[in-house]
């Protein structure tokens, strides 16, 4: 715009960010993709192209089973995130007058509270000698600790939902705030109750925010491996753990790269839905 006079200077300004992008985004992701066609020979990675890694994923039902399980869990977590985050955003937007700013902060603060601290908190609450079990035992309601609380998919779902709530809240809130108030008044003047206004006016107009929040929660849940490791126990092995193990004791980097690329392809495909149906605004925590 203002720079039209010297296009070459303007392009010069793009060099640092382009170099950064090539070095830290394009080359690493590209090279990982390439590695997914390599193979392990002994303890060395041999640069001989093969489709073996993808074939292994497709033929062994264990791997696709874990992926399917992770997709289902991520879907459930994203829905739980919506269930918690949407009403919160709605309440804040339409039902609260006093202390709105404070409640808004209260809703997004957990976003920046340490990830590890939140894991520690939930392990403390759900553990065998944890808060819930101790309280129930003290009240005399149970004799044996409830073992279904920790080291399973339930614990993963609770903790990841907890993490995802602000990610759902922000885009939904942004979308709700944008709805012109006179549309709601018009709907009410024409005789619609709050529920009807919500279903016919508010919900459709907030759909982009809803989809963005859903997608963010889904991707976070799908890619996480530390929470399954810390709270999932043996039945909680998720796709992220499978990838991780290839770089640890399994020592099969090419196969791990192939699994990473599958996760990347799923994530990018889902993210591209945001740009079509959702809104990138507000999803990224900006102003």
């Amino acid at each position, binding site marked *: *715009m*203002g720079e039209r006079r010297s296009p070459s200077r*303007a*392009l010069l*300004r*793009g060099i*640092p*960010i382009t170099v*950064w*992008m090539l070095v*830290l*985004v394009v080359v*690493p*992701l590209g*090279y*990982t993709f390439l*590695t997914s066609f390599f193979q392990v020979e002994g303890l060395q990675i041999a640069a001989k192209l093969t489709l073996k890694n993808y074939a292994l994923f497709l033929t062994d039902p264990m791997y696709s089973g874990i992926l399917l399980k992770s997709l289902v869990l991520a879907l459930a977590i994203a829905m739980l995130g919506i269930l*918690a985050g949407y*009403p*919160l955003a709605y*309440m*804040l937007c339409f*039902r609260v007058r006093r202390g709105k700013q404070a409640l808004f*902060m*209260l*809703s997004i603060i*957990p976003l*920046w*509270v*340490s*990830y590890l601290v*939140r*894991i*520690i*908190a939930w392990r*403390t*609450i759900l553990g065998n*000698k944890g808060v819930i079990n*101790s309280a129930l035992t*003290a009240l005399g309601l149970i004799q044996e600790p409830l073992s279904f609380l920790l080291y399973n998919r339930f614990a993963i779902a609770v903790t990841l939902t*907890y993490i995802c*709530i602000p990610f759902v809240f922000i885009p939904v809130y942004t979308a709700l705030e944008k709805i012109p108030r006179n549309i709601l008044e018009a709907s009410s003047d024409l005789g619609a*109750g*709050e529920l009807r206004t919500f279903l016919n006016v508010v919900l459709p107009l907030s759909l982009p925010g809803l989809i963005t929040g859903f997608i963010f929660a889904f*991707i*976070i849940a799908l890619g996480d491996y*530390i929470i399954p490791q810390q709270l999932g126990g043996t039945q909680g092995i998720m796709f*992220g753990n499978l*990838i991780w193990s290839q*770089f640890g004791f399994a020592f099969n980097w090419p196969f791990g*790269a192939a699994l*990473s690329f599958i*996760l*990347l392809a799923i*994530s990018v495909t889902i*993210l591209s839905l945001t*740009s079509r149906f959702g809104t990138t605004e507000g999803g*990224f925590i*900006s*102003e």
Partner: protein
Amino acid sequence: MNSRRKLGLGLKSYGFFVYFFLYFPLLIVLIFSFSPTKTMVGISGFTLKWYRELFRDENLLIAFSHTILIGVGAVAIAVALGLTGAFFVSRVSFPGKSIFRTLVLLPYILPGILMGISLLVVIKALNVPLSPFTVLLGHVSFTVPVVMFQVMSRIARMGPNYQSAAMDLGANPVQTFWYVTLPMIRTAIIGAALLAFTVSFDEIVISYFLTGTWMTLPVYIYGMMRYGLSPKVYAISAIILLLSLALIMLMSRYTGRTAEVYRVRPRKD
């Protein structure tokens, strides 16, 4: 009207429940950090023993200083790259711009395991040993989009008119940037830097893949967690919790949601 009120009441109690769900776990961490014993029963007592023990743990203090070092370094680089990048993407049109934007955003929105592994694979292929430098590289990958997108959204709301006006009045590009543009985006830069620091301070997944023996605080705590949750873990968690709350409060002063923060003051005459 009555049903509307009932609905409102239901909504508010549900909202209260969600807030309880969000903050109860954090409260638990705080309580346990002061508890003499590991279980709930010990709530009766109060001790600062675990905090004292933290300060005796030399490795933990070293890991803490590493985290600060990486955070400051990554933020400095991210501000430089993010700022030039934001102006480039906002002001220059070129083919494939939306793909460019997406690629920049990827390190921030992709699952950490993907970025961590991709960087590790390249670093190993180049035979570069893992070091503080590789950790820094990892942190630069996701802090740059944080800064760049915050500044971009400010530039977008500012519009090009102020710059054009300054140029028309005879200011050169440097003067325009220094006296017009920079004051208007200053708070966005500070807010973005604080946000980037907070994200870097907490990052575990990418650091875990790119660190050797040189540990950052989250990597060190993660190691502690393998042997069960010791009271010391709660104490350091509580400190981190309060530190991040302080950072957030500071940040919210700069990235205020109100447009007034950056609006140019009306002239008196």
